[in-house]
């Protein structure tokens, strides 16, 4: 127990927690979008994230020819490189998400399988992804070049506003609200919500079900890819087994906020990120996940559908 950090680092832990929380939120959208439409856990999402971290490195090192130990970039070149890596990672993950749906879900859906069948086929896909990357990278960790010089905007109330932390938070807000607008306002977003309310009636209304499902997986992949880019930029290293812990945390995020509920995922991520930071500072990082799960059980005991519940129209029948 180390309660002193509560006084000395309170705001610093909060800031880091929020930044971590945004990464969780972005990954958890990959779970929560799919869950909202299909009522299924998209178990392969954690490995889609893992592939995304490697895609970021590939974009920076392989395609744009930066050395792994190269100097940090400046000006236009920096913005260009980061934007390219972000978009590349998002697209790779988005199309991978669509591919996962085609391979693991499409045929099972047409056969009317039970939810556990989907779970196992999604797990099979994640085994395939994980093993492919493990074999390709020889199980070695891969460092990403420090292209972004990590200068600080300065300290406020003991919290160090570093450029990458600020970047994660601002981009996280932008991506999240764009998605929220997309789902609530646009025609395609309305189609997604319609399918999540009732598959059969939306089919009768002329919605192309398969296209909507693919779109959902694509969007979930896009946000997961963005999270992968931010993760790689902040932590500067990745390995084939990076997906498990982050996927677990993101899944917890989705459940905390009420799985299938976009805004719930947002608050769940903030809560989880801050909680994790405080738990590892106070109790030591080895007890981090124990604390998280204890809190999760307590929260679910009080609110069995997550803090914000499943959105009203999405409550299971």
């Amino acid at each position: 127990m180390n309660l002193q950090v509560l006084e000395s680092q309170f705001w610093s832990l909060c800031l880091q927690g929020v930044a971590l929380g945004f990464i969780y939120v972005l990954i958890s959208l990959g779970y929560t979008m799919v869950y909202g439409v299909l009522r299924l856990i998209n178990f392969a999402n954690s490995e889609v994230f893992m592939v995304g971290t490697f895609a970021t490195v590939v974009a920076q090192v392989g395609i744009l020819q930066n050395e792994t130990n190269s100097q940090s970039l400046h000006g236009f070149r920096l913005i260009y490189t980061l934007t390219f890596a972000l978009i590349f990672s998002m697209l790779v993950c988005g199309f991978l998400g669509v591919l996962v749906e085609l391979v693991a879900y499409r045929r099972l859906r047409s056969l009317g399988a039970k939810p556990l069948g989907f779970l196992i086929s999604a797990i099979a896909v994640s085994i395939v992804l994980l093993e492919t990357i493990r074999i390709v990278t020889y199980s070695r960790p891969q460092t990403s070049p420090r292209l972004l010089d990590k200068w600080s905007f300065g300290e406020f109330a003991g919290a160090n506003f570093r450029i990458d932390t600020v970047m994660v938070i601002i981009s996280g807000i932008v991506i999240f609200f764009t998605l929220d607008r997309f789902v609530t306002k646009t025609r395609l977003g309305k189609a997604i919500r319609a399918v999540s309310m009732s598959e059969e009636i939306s089919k009768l209304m002329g919605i192309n079900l398969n296209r909507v499902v693919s779109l959902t997986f694509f969007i979930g992949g896009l946000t997961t890819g963005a999270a992968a880019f931010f993760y790689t930029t902040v932590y500067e290293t990745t390995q084939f087994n990076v997906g498990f812990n982050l996927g677990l945390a993101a899944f917890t995020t989705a459940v905390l906020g009420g799985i299938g509920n976009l805004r719930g995922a947002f608050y769940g991520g903030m809560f989880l990120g801050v909680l994790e930071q405080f738990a590892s500072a106070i109790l030591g990082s080895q007890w981090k996940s124990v604390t998280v799960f204890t809190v999760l059980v307590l929260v679910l005991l009080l609110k069995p559908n997550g803090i914000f519940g499943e959105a009203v129209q999405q409550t299971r029948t």
Partner: protein
Amino acid sequence: MINLRDKGASIWENWSPPARSSFVLIVITLVALLPYAGDFGPTSFLNTPISSYQAVLVYPIALFVLMGLGLNIVVGKSGLLDLGYVAFFAIGAYTMGIMGTMTSLNTWEILPFGIFFAMLAGLLLGLPALRLRGDYLAIVTLGFGEIVRIIALNLQVTGGPNGVVGVPTPPPILGQKFELDDHKAYFWVILIMILLVIWMVRRFTVRRPGRAWEAIRQDEDVAALMGVNLLVYKLWSFTIGAAVGGAGGVIYASKTMFIAPDMFTFNTSILVLACVVFGGLGNIWGVILGASILAYLPERIRFISNARQLVFGLVLLVIMNVRPDGLLPRKKREKIKQKEAK
């Protein structure tokens, strides 16, 4: 497609009791002779490269069948998705490890303790968790599995990341010794446990708890309306499943003589769940078949060492796409019964 499950069931139903019992006896004898199959000409294709065939037969195959049957009570019979089943296996194994090294009790005396502690853990987890539904239960059990592993990793008494070394092997029964390189005896012990579990599950299925589980699995709300006490019967199914896992853990620890936290990861839970779903959810024979195949396959293809998990994943994916309800599904049998009723 040929439906083995229904064919078998209809043949079985037309047999007289003596024919049934002699068939069961023959099958049990054949299975009990499996450890010798590797030495015997026509069946030597079963031999696994690199690791010894008899060792593979005990772990993973026999233990996975046992755990699959235990998990089947939870997932298959009562429809509760448990993603942390390895926790009970770990609790059994650590009970054996700690009590075996610290006290003078032998494996057979520790076995009830292992089962008891696993059931206790099942009860403690189940009391809060079983009020939740579906996917919320899944994440809580998943977390429980991780918590047990992390606690084992960070406590003094469990030896931390080094685990427990020098777990004693069981004392001989009926003159049959249990030695490290002699796997036959372990196989027979686990086989007896498997048979006991099968018997137990079959008894449960036709009695009150089995009917309650079936009702809960099909529709919780309707079951509650019909007067089934949801929490009590869910707890029963959960603790009985935990007991089977704990028993498996005790034998496993006693056989490997060494346990460490990284033997009890989420992957094991997933693999056992895959065995259950792959074989056919809720169907004992399906689970046995699924567990045998999924445990045996990675060992059989060990010669492509680097890519064997990849091949495993691909096979799992293809089979799930071809037969989404598992190899021997339960659904068809229910349909046949309905047809006969008409």
